[in-house]
C-alpha cells in the first residue's frame, strides 16, 4: 500500500554524480525515501544501480552531490558510518561466515561484551527477540552453512536490523531465491515497512517492482530517466523507460540485402552453464553474408554461454554450429579463427585484453606465432611495431605510443584495440558482444560506423546487446533470447521496442498488459 506523501523523509540524495576515470556511472541522481516506504531502483545491468547503492552505503564517495538523512547532510567515509546512521545493506552475495551459528553471524562485530568476554546467551536472547518482533523465524543456533539460501538472506536482514537499521537496501534480493522463498521475502519486507522501516530494492525484474514497491526510480546509462508511483505505471511503460525508447544515435543503416547467402548458423544447440544448469535450450539461428542479426535479451538468459560456445571456449552438449557448411562445434578456438570466425568479447578487460601488456603486444595476440610477427619462434619486434602503428592509424587508437600499457587507456581506446585486432583479420563471420558498454557517445558512434562498414564488406555479424537502441540502430533482424531459448525473431523493420522489450522481460507478448 502506498505511503502518503506526509510521511517524513528518511533518506534523500541530491544530484549525486559519480565519475570513474572515463565513465560517468551516476549522473545527477536525486531520489527520496520516506519512512515506511518501499522504493525500487530499476535498471539494466550497468545502468548505475549498484554504484548508487555503494555510494549510499559509504563504499564509494560521490564526485559531487550530497546525501541527507532525516533532512541533515551526511558524509560517509566507510560502511561503518552508514551503519551508524541507520543504513543496512543486504548484498547480492551474502557477507556471512558459513561455519558460525546464526547468532554469531548476526552479532559479529557488535557483540555484547563484558571484560573481553562475549556474552553469547545475551546475544542469543536479542536475536530471538528480534526475529520474533519482525516475524523472521530462524533457528539462532543453526550453523549458517546448514541453512537454505532464503534463510541465509533472512540472517542478513536480521544482521542489519540488529544494527538498528532504519533503511534497508537490498541488492537483487531475489536473484538467488526460489519462487516460494521470493513470496516469503516479500511478506517479510512488507511487514518491516508496515513497522516503519524504509526499504530500497535494486532490481531489473519488472514483476518484483510491480508486486512490492510503492514508488519506482528508473536508471539508464547512469541517469535517472523516470520516477513514478508503481500503481500508476504499466509494466510496458516501465519496460520502455528501462530499455530506452528514443534512438540517441541515428546511424545510416544500409538496407539489408534481399536474400543473404547464409554462412553461419546454429542448429538446436544445447549448452549447460559452468554451474551445470541448462543455459541454452535448443537455439536455432542463421546469419547471412552482409547481414547483422541482433540478439536482444536481459543479461543472464544465455548470452554468456552463447558467446563462449560460438567462440570455442566451451563445447555444446548437442546441436551443431555450422560455418561455411562445416560443423565447427568441436573445433579449437584457433581453428575457428583461422577459418574466418572472429569474436569481440563483452568484457574487454577480462577476456579481450591482457591489461599489463602494451598496445603492440595486445594487437599481436592470436597471431604472434606466424610471420610476419615471428619467425621460427622468435618475435620480430620491428614487425610488431609496424603492425601496431598501422592499426593505430587505421582505427584511430589514441595513445602515447605503441608501447603504452593498455591498462592506462580509456575504455574507448581499449575497445578500438580489440576491434582493430579482430577486424584486421578479415573475418567472414563476427560475433560481437556488448561492443559499446561503458563507452562515451563519440566512441559508440565510431564503433557503430566500423561495424556497418564490415557489414557492407559482406561479413556476417551476430550482435549481442542489452541495449535495444543499439540493436535497432544496427541490426537487420532481431532475435530475443529468454531463458536460453529464442522466443521471438523478426526483421527490425516490422517490430518495435515495446514488443521486443516485452519478450525480453516476459518471454512472451500480450497486447493488453494487466
Amino acid at each position: 500500500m502506498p505511503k502518503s506523501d506526509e510521511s517524513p523523509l528518511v533518506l534523500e540524495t541530491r544530484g549525486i554524480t559519480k565519475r570513474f576515470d572515463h565513465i560517468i556511472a551516476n549522473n545527477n541522481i536525486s531520489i527520496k525515501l520516506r519512512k515506511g516506504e518501499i522504493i525500487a531502483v530499476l535498471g539494466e545491468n550497468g545502468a548505475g544501480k549498484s554504484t548508487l547503492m555503494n555510494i549510499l552505503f559509504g563504499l564509494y564517495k560521490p564526485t559531487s552531490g550530497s546525501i541527507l538523512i532525516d533532512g541533515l547532510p551526511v558524509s560517509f567515509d566507510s560502511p561503518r558510518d552508514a551503519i551508524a546512521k541507520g543504513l543496512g545493506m543486504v548484498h547480492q552475495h551474502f557477507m556471512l561466515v558459513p561455519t558460525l551459528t546464526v547468532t554469531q553471524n548476526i552479532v559479529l562485530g557488535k557483540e555484547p561484551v563484558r571484560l573481553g568476554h562475549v556474552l553469547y546467551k545475551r546475544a542469543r536472547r536479542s536475536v530471538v527477540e528480534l526475529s520474533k518482533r519482525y516475524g523472521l523465524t530462524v533457528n539462532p543456533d543453526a550453523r549458517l552453512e546448514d541453512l537454505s539460501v532464503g534463510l541465509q538472506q533472512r540472517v542478513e536482514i536480521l544482521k542489519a536490523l540488529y544494527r538498528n537499521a532504519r533503511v534497508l537496501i537490498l541488492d537483487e534480493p531475489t536473484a538467488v531465491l526460489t519462487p516460494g522463498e521470493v513470496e516469503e521475502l516479500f511478506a517479510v519486507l512488507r511487514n518491516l515497512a508496515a513497522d516503519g522501516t524504509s526499504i530500497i530494492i535494486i532490481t531489473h525484474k519488472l514483476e518484483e517492482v510491480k508486486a512490492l514497491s510503492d514508488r519506482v526510480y528508473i536508471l539508464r546509462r547512469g541517469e535517472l530517466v523516470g520516477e513514478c508511483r508503481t500503481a500508476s505505471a504499466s509494466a510496458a511503460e516501465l519496460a520502455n523507460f528501462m530499455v530506452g525508447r528514443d534512438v540517441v544515435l541515428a546511424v545510416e543503416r544500409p538496407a539489408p540485402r534481399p536474400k543473404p547467402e547464409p554462412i553461419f548458423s546454429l542448429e538446436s544447440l544445447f549448452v549447460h552453464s559452468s554451474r551445470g544448469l541448462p543455459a541454452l535450450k535448443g537455439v536455432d539461428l542463421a546469419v547471412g553474408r552482409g547481414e547483422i542479426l541482433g540478439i536482444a535479451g536481459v543479461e543472464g538468459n544465455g548470452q554468456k554461454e552463447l558467446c563462449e560456445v560460438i567462440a570455442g571456449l566451451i563445447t555444446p552438449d548437442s546441436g551443431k554450429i555450422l560455418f561455411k557448411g562445416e560443423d565447427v562445434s568441436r573445433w579449437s578456438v584457433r581453428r575457428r579463427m583461422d577459418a574466418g570466425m572472429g569474436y569481440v568479447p563483452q568484457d574487454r578487460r577480462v577476456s579481450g585484453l591482457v591489461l599489463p601488456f602494451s598496445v603492440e603486444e595486445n594487437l599481436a595476440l592470436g597471431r604472434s606465432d606466424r610471420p610476419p610477427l615471428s619467425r621460427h619462434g622468435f618475435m620480430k619486434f620491428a614487425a610488431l611495431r609496424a603492425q601496431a602503428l598501422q592499426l593505430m592509424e587505421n582505427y584511430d587508437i589514441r595513445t602515447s605510443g605503441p608501447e603504452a600499457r593498455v591498462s592506462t587507456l580509456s575504455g574507448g581506446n581499449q575497445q578500438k584495440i580489440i576491434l582493430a585486432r579482430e577486424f584486421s583479420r578479415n573475418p567472414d563471420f563476427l560475433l560481437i558482444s556488448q561492443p559499446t558498454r561503458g563507452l562515451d557517445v563519440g566512441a559508440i558512434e565510431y564503433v557503430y560506423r566500423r561495424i556497418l562498414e564490415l557489414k557492407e564488406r559482406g561479413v556476417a555479424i551476430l550482435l549481442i546487446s542489452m541495449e535495444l537502441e543499439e540493436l535497432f540502430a544496427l541490426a537487420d533482424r532481431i532475435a530475443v533470447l529468454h531463458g536460453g531459448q529464442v522466443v521471438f525473431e523478426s526483421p527490425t523493420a516490422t517490430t518495435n521496442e515495446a514488443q521486443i522489450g516485452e519478450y525480453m522481460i516476459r518471454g512472451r507478448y500480450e497486447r493488453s498488459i494487466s
Partner: protein
Amino acid sequence: MSVSAPRRIRMVLKALSLILAVPGVLLYLASYFWGAWLLLCAIALYAADRFLAVGSAVFGSEARKLLSRAIVPVAGIGSALLIGAVIMAITGYNPISSYGALFYGGLVRNWHISVLNATPLIFTGLAIAFAFQGGFFNIGAEGQYYIGVIAATWMGLGSTLPGIIAIPAIFAVAAIAGAALNAIPIILKVKTGAHEVVTTMMFAYVVRTLSPMFIRAHGGDPALTSHPYTTDLISESVWLPMFKDFLPGANYRLHIGVLLAIGAAFLVRFILMKTDLGYKIRAVGHNPVAAMTQGISVARITAASLFISGSLAAIAGATQVLGLDHRMFQDLNAGYGWNGISIALLARNNPIGIIFTSLLWGVLDAGGQYMARTTQTPNAIIEIVKGIILFLMLAEVIYKRAGSVFGRWAGRFKTAARKGAGA
C-alpha cells in the same frame, strides 16, 4: 637537444664495454677483486653509448628510473640489517664487529663460497620465476633439484666418455628428468585443475624419500663410512672445469657452474621477452581468459612453462654434482628448491635480478658462517635478517602508500610556500 653521434663510435663503445665486462666478471667471481675496475669501466662505456643513442633528456629519465627502482631493495636490505643490529645489541652481541665479520667473510675472505652458494640458487630461482611468469607456482622445485642430482650422479658414475660429450649429455638427461617429474602435475592441472602447488610439492617429498634407495644402490654403505651416506665419486672426466684451470689464484673448489647459471639467466630472459613462447607464457600469466579467447592453448602453455621450470631446477642439481659435490649425499639439506622461491620473489621474477639476489643470499650464508666462527654471534641472526629482507620487499606496497602520502604533503607544503612567497 641531442646530436646523434656517428654510428661507428657507438659500435666501438659497445664492443669495448663487452670486451671489458666479460673478463671483469670472470676475475671478480674468482676473487680477483680488481676485476671490479674493468666492470666499472664497462658500465661507464655502456652508459656513454646509451647517452649517445638517446640524448641527454631521455638518458636522464632512464637513469632516474633505474635509481628509483633500486631504492626499495637497497632501503629494504639496509633496514633489515639495522633491525638485525638492534636484535644483536639486545641479545648481547656486538653488531659492529659481527657485521664486519659478516661482510669480510661473505664478500672478501670467503667470496668463493658465496659464489658457490649462489650458483644453484640462480637456477632454482629461475625455475620458480619462469613458472611464475606463466602464472604457475612451481613450489616443488626442491624435488626437481633432487631428481637432477640423482640423474647427474647416475650418469656420472663410471662414465668413460670424454667430458666434452658427457657433460652436455648429463645436463640434457637431468633437464629431461626434471621436466618429466612435472609431467604428472601438468596432466593433473590441465585435466582436473588440481593445483600445482600441492602436486609438485608432493612429488618433492616422493623424490626426497626415494633418494636413499638410489644412494644405497650406488655405493652408499653406512657400515663403511661415518659420514651420512653418499654414493661413490663420479668419474673425474665429467667434473666441470674449475676457475683455477685458467686463473691460478682462484679457489680450488670454484667451478664454472656460476657462469652457466648467469648464461641461463640471460637465456631465460631471452625466451621470455624475445620468443613467441615467452610472449604466450606471459600472456597466459597475466590473463589466461584473454589468451584462451585469442586461440592460445592454455594447456600447452601450462605444460611448456612447467616443463622448462622443472628442467631449470634439475640443472641446478646437476651443476652441484658435476661442479662441487662429485657425488650424491643423502639428506642434502640444501633446500635450494625452497630457497629459490625467496630468490625469485625478491627479484620479482626478473631473470637478471635473480643473479643478484642469489649472490646476496650466498653472501649472507657464507658471511654468516664466517661471522659465527670468528665472533661467536649465532648464525641464526642471519636467517632473521633474510626473513626481514623478504618481508620488507613483499611489503613494498607500504612504501608506495607512504611515498604517495609523503608526496601529497610535500606538494601541499610547496603550494603553501609558493602562496606565502607570492603574498
